[in-house]
Each structure stands twice: as C-alpha cells, then as structure tokens.
C-alpha cells in the first residue's frame, strides 16, 4: 500500500517542493511508467534496464509474479498465467466468449456480473490482476523518482466504456494510488507530440495496440487540445493479427483436432514472432512442434498482408467515420501509437488514407506513457505557468432503455466532458412508487446491442395518478469520463433513492473486501495511514487557502473575513500537529466550509476576467 509522504509534526512542508508525478500506460500486452527526471520526461526502466513490463501476471503457490518471468511461464502454466487482462476489464462472461479462443481461463462469475478467473491462488478478478501490474510499475516509479508518488495519470483507450474505466479506477484504488486523471491514450500521445514539436491544426492519432484500436482527431490551438472526434474498436488489435497467423499455421499443417491450451499458446507466440520478423523482412521460415502439432514452412509478407487485410480495413473505416464526425476532410498530421503500427501494411494503409506520412519519431510503445507523465506533472502542480489544457469527449453515447428494448439516447458520443443532462420520466400506474431505469452505452438502437452499464431503482416516488409524477434523472459525466446518476421527483421535490447495480463492475462491498485483503491487517499500520492521510489533506487545504488569500484576499474579502479565515488556518495547523485523525478531518471540513464563499467569489471573478486576462497575454505574444 502506497503511503504518502509524511512531514514531521512541527516541520513545515514546503509548498513549492516538487511533487512526484508519473504517467502509467496500462496496456494489453505491455505496460509502462514514465516520469520527469532532470527536466526530461522519459519512461522508467526496471533493474534490468527494460522499459516495457509485459502485462502478464502469474499466480503461484509461492506468490504473485509479474512481467517477463510470468510471460516465460505462460506456456507451461497457462491457466495460472493471466495475459491480456485488459480485454477482460469491466466485462461479463458473455462478452469474453465473443473475444475468441485465446482466452482459455476458467471463469467464475460474481454477483456484480464481473468475471473471476480460477487460479491456484483462488479466484481473482481482472481488477485485482491489473492492480498487480500497477503495483509493480508504481514500485519501479518510486525507486526511479526516489520517493512515493504524489499522483499518477493512468491512460485508457478512448473507446473504453464506463464499466471499463470504472474497473481501471478500481484497480488503482486497490493499490492506494492517487489518480489525478484517467486520460485517453490517443490524447496522451498527442500531448507527447504536441509539446515536443508545437503542432497546430487538426491531428489524427492512430493507435493500434495489442487488443484495442483507437482513432482520435484533436484540434490543437495555443496549448489547448480539443478532442473533436473519437472512434475505434475495443476488440481489435495486434493480437488479432497473431490469431490470423496461428489459424493459417493450423490450416497449413492440416491439423484438425482441437488445440490444447499449451499448443494454442505456442502457436500464438510463434505467430507473433513471424509478424515481427516480417516487419523487417519479406519472408520468414517457421518450424513448430508442440505435442502432436507439427509444421514447417515459410510465410511471406504478401500472404501476411492478405491475412490481415480486412482487419486493417476495419480500422481505416473507423478513421473515415471519425473524420466525418469531426466535419473535417483532411488533417495536418498523423501520429502513430502502439506496437502494432510497426507492421508495414498498417503504416502504408494509414499513409494512403490520410495522404501524409505519419509521424513516428517517438517510440510508438512509449509515447502514451510519456504524454501521460507530461499531463501528470502539470496536474500535480509542478508547472503552474503551463497553459496546456485537454478538453476531452465522451467516446460512446449514453442512453436509457425504453419500452420494447429500444435505446433513448441521453448524451451523444463526442460530446465534450464534463457534461450533465437531465431526462424526465413519468409513472405509468396510479400510485406507482418505484421505477427501474437501465443505463446503457453504445450507438445501436437496441438495448441488446449496447453495453449495459447499470440498473437504477428509484424508490420513494410520492403516490400520484399515472403520468403525474415528473421524475428528473440527472446524468453527470466527469472529466475522467465516469458517469454518476441522481434523481428527484420534480413536482414535490422528493429525492428518490437510487440503488446502483453496476452490470459488470465490482460493488462497494467487494472493493472494501479487496482493500482489506490487500493492506496489512496490523492495526498500527492502518492508524498511521489514516493519520498520514489526514495530515496530508490538512496541509493541502492550508497551502491552497494561504495562496488564495495572498492572491485574491484583499480584493475580494472584507478585513473581517480575511481575519476569520486566517484564524481558521492557525487553528487547523495546530490541530494537524496533534495525532487525532478525526479531529484533523473535522478541522479540514470546518475550514473548507468557512472558505466556501471565498472559493465561489474567486471562481466568479476568474470567469469574469477570463477574456481580458488572456487577451492581454495574446497581445503580448503577438509583439
């Protein structure tokens, strides 16, 4: 469990001290962590000097193994070695069946609908498996940056739906990470390129990873990155190329029996090698012998291209759609992300479609982590002068189930986030006191073709004749792209209670249980952690209010108000030196309450002055 930095009681924390921030690319095949060292943003290596951590987790009698060692055991111990766990995040068993034969684990479903994998160490959820990968990366990050991380930005495919994002956040919660933001992978890549080469105009980010494909179009304007369209396929990636090659091997060998897990693993890793070899060469020889499967022969790049053609076409179609959604006909630049963009046929197809040579000078495997680290460094507060801002969008439409299994869209895809929309419902029976609402995500018209996100039961609707109640359901999507829902009856103002049953998520109890299991049960440790967190929180509030008072106190507040807040600061600082976490938390809350009006005044003033301030800056730039 990651502990935040502790400042000794009585020893003032320097508000200007650099904070440790990192960007994490939690990938299907490989994961990376990047940070800023000596002013340079770079991916961080492990003890052996390798930057890429294979996203593989092996459960053994003796504990959990993550990375290369786990991957090397994949063939001998396939059932306990979890690969491509990202494809299972926020998914139910039915979804996984659709993902094909390479998922060869034994599944058990939980109440929440999220799958669990049977391993020698018991049943584990994809969230826990991902948490193991995160733990490994965070440890590497803390060692490289010489201290605990203050905050991280974790990237997700732009096409990830709410359940998949939530699952990613839950994994970070299990490791005790302070997640500053979930950032879309293509946006992260654009940030990495945008700051390096000062691109302007519309850029396309073509991101083909192991398991997912994303296309994003962003408009860059004086440091503001505005995502104008996203698209893609959360089940298309380099793994599919491998599978095509493996199928070809099976067909060439004329092998007709069903492959056992070991054979399948061997064929897939052989396929992967062939694909990589054919990125540099025109032809490659292959020899496979595993159990009773035997084949030797040759694969040419032309044949490989034929095998992959429709998959690549599928990605180009998504590019065409994104371009259309954005109302653009051409782009100024194309950025390549993801290891699968090393495949020559992919590069050629992208170059042909957009009519320009794609940029790839930053390693396509590392560019996402680097962009995330740049963003983390800004969010954590190390670069206050930086004017960069990311404006992202909702990747998939949110809707509700209506009569006949049809979807009523509430928020359309590519709507800028954060966003809130209200939708009104009414009762269809006299005296009806409850209502079931089913939230789905996707573009199709039928509920059965969309992703089920959650079912809400509204209770406590006041008794009225049918059609008289007006129940307003408010959907709010925050800057991480995560959805929350609230509801109220409008005519009486009665708030209906909501029970959230995430369709493929973990419920609060499951998370609490996992948290309990993952932290050391020693009471003292938990107490110390609670106290530490309370103090860090108090320090943060004191710093923020002190600097706010210094900047805006005199012009927005009366002398009496300033005095009141200053006294509050002194009181909280005194309380924070004590060792009662509850008292500290109460102090934080009290000072927060006392400064609410001041915060609102500051925000209003900032909005009023948004145009004047920036216009002055723009003028300065011009001269």
């Amino acid at each position, binding site marked *: 469990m990651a502990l935040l930095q502790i400042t000794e009681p009585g020893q003032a924390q320097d508000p200007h001290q650099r904070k440790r921030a990192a960007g994490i690319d939690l990938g299907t095949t490989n994961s990376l962590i990047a940070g800023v060292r000596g002013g340079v943003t770079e991916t961080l290596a492990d003890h052996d000097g390798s930057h890429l951590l294979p996203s593989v987790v092996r459960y053994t009698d003796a504990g959990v193994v993550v990375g290369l060692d786990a991957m090397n055991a994949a063939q001998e111990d396939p059932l306990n070695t979890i690969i491509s766990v990202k494809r299972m995040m926020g998914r139910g068993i039915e979804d996984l069946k659709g993902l094909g034969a390479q998922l060869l684990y034994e599944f058990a479903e939980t109440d929440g609908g999220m799958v669990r994998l049977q391993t020698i160490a018991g049943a584990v959820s994809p969230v826990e498996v991902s948490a193991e990968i995160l733990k490994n990366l965070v440890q590497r990050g803390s060692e490289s940056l010489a201290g605990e991380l203050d*905050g991280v930005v974790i990237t997700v495919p732009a096409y990830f739906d709410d359940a998949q994002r939530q699952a990613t956040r839950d994994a970070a919660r299990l490791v005790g990470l302070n997640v*500053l*933001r979930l950032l879309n992978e293509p946006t992260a890549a654009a940030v990495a390129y945008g700051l390096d080469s000062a691109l302007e105009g519309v850029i396309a980010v073509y991101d083909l990873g192991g398991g997912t494909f994303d296309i994003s179009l962003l408009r860059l*304007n*004086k440091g*503001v990155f*505005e995502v104008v369209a996203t698209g893609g396929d959360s089940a298309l990636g380099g793994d599919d190329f491998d599978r095509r090659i493996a199928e070809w091997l099976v067909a060439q060998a004329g092998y007709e029996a069903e492959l056992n897990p070991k054979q399948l693993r061997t064929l897939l890793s052989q396929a992967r090698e062939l694909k990589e070899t054919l990125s540099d060469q025109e032809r490659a020889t292959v020899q496979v012998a595993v159990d009773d499967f035997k084949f030797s022969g040759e694969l040419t790049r032309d044949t490989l291209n034929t095998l992959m053609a429709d998959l690549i076409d599928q990605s180009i*179609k998504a590019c*065409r*759609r994104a371009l*259309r959604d954005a109302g653009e006909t051409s782009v100024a630049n194309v950025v390549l992300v993801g290891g699968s963009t090393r495949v020559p046929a992919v590069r050629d197809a992208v170059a042909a479609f957009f009519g320009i040579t794609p940029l790839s000078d930053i390693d396509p495997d590392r560019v996402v982590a680097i962009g995330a680290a740049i963003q983390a460094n*800004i*969010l*954590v*507060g190390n670069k206050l002068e930086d*004017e960069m*801002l*990311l*404006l992202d969008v909702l990747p998939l439409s949110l809707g509700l189930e209506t009569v006949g299994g049809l979807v009523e869209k509430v928020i359309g895809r590519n*709507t*800028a*986030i*954060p*966003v*809130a929309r209200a939708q009104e419902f009414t009762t269809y029976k006299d005296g009806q006191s409850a209502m079931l609402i089913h939230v789905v995500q996707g573009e199709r018209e039928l509920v059965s073709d969309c992703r089920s996100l959650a079912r809400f039961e509204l209770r406590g609707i006041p008794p009225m004749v049918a059609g008289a109640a007006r129940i307003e359901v408010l959907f*709010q999507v*925050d*800057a991480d792209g995560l959805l929350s829902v609230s509801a109220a009856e409008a005519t009486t103002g009665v708030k209906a209670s909501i029970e959230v049953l995430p369709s493929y998520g973990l419920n609060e109890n499951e998370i609490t249980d996992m948290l309990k299991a993952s932290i050391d049960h020693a009471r003292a440790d938990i107490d110390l952690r609670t106290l530490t967190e309370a103090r860090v929180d108090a320090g*943060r*509030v004191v710093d*923020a*209010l002190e600097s706010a008072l210094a900047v805006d106190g005199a012009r927005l507040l009366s002398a009496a108000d300033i005095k009141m807040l200053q006294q509050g600061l002194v009181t909280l600082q005194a309380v924070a030196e004590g060792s009662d976490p509850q008292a500290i938390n109460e102090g934080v809350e009290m000072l*927060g*309450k006392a*400064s*609410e009006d001041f*915060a*609102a005044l500051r*925000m*209003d003033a*900032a*909005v009023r002055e*948004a*145009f004047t301030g*920036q216009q002055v800056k723009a003028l300065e730039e011009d001269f």
Partner: protein
Amino acid sequence: MDFNQNYFEIFQLPVSFDLDVDQLALRYRQLQSTVHPDKFVSATDHEKRLSLQWATQINSAYDTLRAPLPRAIYLLALKDVNIEDNPQLDPMFLMEQIELREHLEDIGEQEDSEAALKSLDAFKADVDARMAGLQLEFAAHYDADAGKAEQVVYKLQFINKLRQAADHLEEKLLDY
C-alpha cells in the same frame, strides 16, 4: 455561480441569432482554461465541485450556441416560447417535405451507387440552401415576432432531420 446568467452572457456575446462562431470557439477555450477540473486537481472539495459545475455549464452553453437549430430554440426559450412536440405545420410545407423524402428514397434505391452519390450531392446542396434560407427567416423574425420565429424553428427541425437522413444514406452508400 450565477445560473441566471444566460448562455450568451457567459461568453459575453450579444443575444442574437447571428453569432461569430470563431469568436465563440475562442472564448470557449479561454473559459475552459480558467474553470476546467484539470486546473483544480489539488483544490478543496468545494472548489472541485464549483469547477465541475462551471465546466459543465460552459460545455452546455457552447453546445447549445454553436449549432444554428439549438441556438434558435434557446433564443425562443429566452422569450419564454417553448417548442411543442407535435406542432401544426403549413400543409404546403408538409407536402414539400413528403416529396423531398420520396426523392431521397428514390436516390437510395438507385442500382448504380456512383450515380446515387452524385444525385445525393445535389440533394444535399438543395437541402442546405433551404436550411440557410430558413435561418435567415428566423433571424429576421426573432426580434419582432417570436410566434413567426417559432414556426420557422419547426420547419428547421424538419429540414435538419432530412439532412441527417441524407447523411445516413451517404454513409450507407460509402459503406462506413
């Protein structure tokens, strides 16, 4: 946060159907650079909440004002004119709409997709011209006669849906 401020006031732009969309986009970016949650990551919970509310409000305002139809509907709402779900429409206009729909269907049924796309381009140009005409009409009526402007909005809604249907057909023909 002053929720009584109308969307135009948020951007400090005049309340009018004719709007400089580039200026709107510029001010949108300036406002978000001030209030976006990314600027409040280590702020107090209250400030985070304010930031989320503002950023959400600014996104709604921008979405409403940047496209002509929602902008027109919003302008009517400012005059307390609310759009009906099933408005009475001029029979002549409805006849015309039916004919246009039939024309669009015919285009979709053409065997030669190249030729279909060509007729579709002409069809879209025609629809766009009608849309532009209606927008001018709305702007002309809005100040003096909200009732007339309201009628124009109903027509705009029809034309907008027709335009979407044409886009869908194009996507189908181009095999998106």
